[in-house]
């Protein structure tokens, strides 16, 4: 290059806006969170196949369970298996998001992006908040795609529009709780190994619940564990709200599914959110 480099003098260097007072600090925390989430949105547009595959996977699962296995499945109280299955698959799509969260967090830590963020004078919550926003957006998209596909294979909601909205709300609430677990695991592990472990665990978590079959068909001890899987409460509550077959049981935990579909996620957030903040502030190594 024949161009001589001219240095911009230091007087031209931009001056940052500094937060003054708690209100402006809170505003910056939100803005910084959005900025960090915006990075993920650019990732999506630059690597559409990656998000595309993430959206496709639950669709393949639905195909498999409806057409390959669905023929031999029966719902205890009667009712259509596809109608029974779809709310479970919606919840499954939320659980698959866990692996995506852990992947994103461990990648940033391994590549040093997390350290770069931590050395900036931005809101210390922004990295986690940004992760949360991006993951929630992505899971909302996944849910939308899966709802559309469910309708193609014959699933319908029979309740009111408000009930349907409440159902989707509960699913996203479950995802919200999983974000915090994912961030914590990702920060704790800081390695690619954690991703494999979590992605392997997603299936037992999904199967050890009422997602695919009614817990009443399991041995009592296993059925009890499955009933107490937080995912089961969400799935049962969502089935009720959509007017799909519930096939619950008469134990306390199955009778109170709608309540527990709210309590479980909030409990998980209450435990894991402070852990995340603490871990993020004290990252070492």
């Amino acid at each position: 290059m024949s161009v001589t480099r001219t240095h911009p003098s230091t007087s031209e260097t931009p001056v940052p806006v500094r937060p003054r007072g708690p209100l402006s600090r809170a505003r910056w925390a939100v803005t910084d969170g959005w900025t960090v989430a915006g990075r993920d949105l650019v990732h999506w547009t630059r690597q559409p196949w990656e998000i595309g595959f993430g959206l496709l996977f639950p669709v393949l699962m639905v195909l498999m369970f409806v057409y390959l296995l669905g023929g031999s499945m029966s719902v205890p109280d009667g009712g259509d298996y596809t109608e029974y299955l779809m709310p479970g698959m919606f919840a499954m799509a939320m659980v698959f998001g866990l692996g995506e969260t852990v992947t994103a967090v461990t990648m940033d830590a391994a590549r040093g992006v997390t350290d770069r963020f931590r050395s900036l004078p931005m809101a210390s919550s922004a990295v986690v908040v940004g992760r949360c926003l991006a993951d929630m957006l992505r899971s909302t998209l996944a849910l939308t795609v899966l709802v559309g596909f469910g309708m193609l294979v014959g699933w319908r909601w029979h309740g009111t529009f408000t009930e349907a909205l409440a159902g989707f709300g509960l699913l996203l609430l479950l995802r919200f709780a999983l974000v915090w677990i994912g961030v914590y695991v990702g920060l704790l592990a800081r390695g690619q190994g954690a991703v494999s472990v979590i992605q392997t665990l997603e299936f037992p978590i999904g199967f050890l619940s009422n997602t695919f079959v009614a817990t009443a068909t399991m041995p009592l001890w296993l059925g009890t564990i499955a009933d107490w899987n937080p995912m089961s409460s969400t799935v049962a509550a969502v089935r009720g709200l959509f007017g799909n077959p519930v096939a619950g049981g008469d134990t306390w935990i199955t009778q109170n599914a709608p309540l527990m579909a709210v309590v479980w996620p909030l409990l998980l957030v209450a435990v894991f959110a402070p852990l995340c903040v603490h871990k993020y502030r004290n990252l070492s190594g």
Partner: protein
Amino acid sequence: MAPTRKAISARGLGRRFKDEWALRGFDLEVEPGTVHGLLGPNGAGKSTAVRVLTTLLRHHEGTAEVAGYDVATQGSEVRYRIGLVGQNAAVDEILSGRQNLRLFGCLYHLGGRAAARRADELLERFGLSDSGDRPVGTYSGGMRRRLDLAAGMILAPPVMFLDEPTVGLDPRGREEVWSAVRDLVDDGTTVLLTTQYLEEADRLARTISVIDTGRVIAEGTPTELKTRIGGDRIDVVLTDGTALDRAAALVAEATGHPVDVDLEGRRLSAEVDDRVAALTRSVRVLDEEAVGVADVLLRRPTLDEVFLHLTDSGEHSPNTTTEVAR
């Protein structure tokens, strides 16, 4: 508030991981507008020191101030005044160079328009304008590291931390980074540079701290350190390993210095005071005594030898340093 005169000042800094002290009794003073090299082998505590000084890691002992602010209690103030580049600071591989700089600019709270303008300026300045819109994943090592530097320069911070900025780069990439660092210093930035390479510290740093097992074991200008460490060295590789002892005696006599013997490499190594004359003398006596020589070279001392010398000399034993620190 009376900021101290030093750009970086650490006193008795200590940080342990479980029961291991990665850093202990670490002292450092860096004058504003200079490059200070932190020289040491892997695991010496260089990165731990940088992570504590950049507020990424809390310390357990001592105090540290950067740009006049305490890293423990005024972390946010420190973060407005530092840039961090190197093995532990990175850029997003999927975003383009320009998008990276805009992202970080926004996180520095410049506002979107100023962040975009600053990104363009920095791409230009670091010679990345042409590749600014390509994903960083397609960049060469040197380009990546320059983008890294640019990201650390967004606020033109008074103090830059470069943690092994040339590790893994080819010679050309290394030259690119070195030239960028010199530009920083021309603009009045204080630079703390960690490196394992004596040559790098020599080329860039005005003062150097040699660090080992978490503390500074020697300090001074490159020239001062080199004088302490000793001069150039001669290496002689023999064709026949059985002649090593005899050859060692001859080389010791020719150079006037003790000879290190490497049995496996059939290699003798000794300090020389008068370079070519010592080389000529050594080759001549070896030839006269019919010792087969495969290779001879004159070279600068390696970092290993620097450390051997410093830990052997006793004048800066760990104990003494600790006493001074307290």
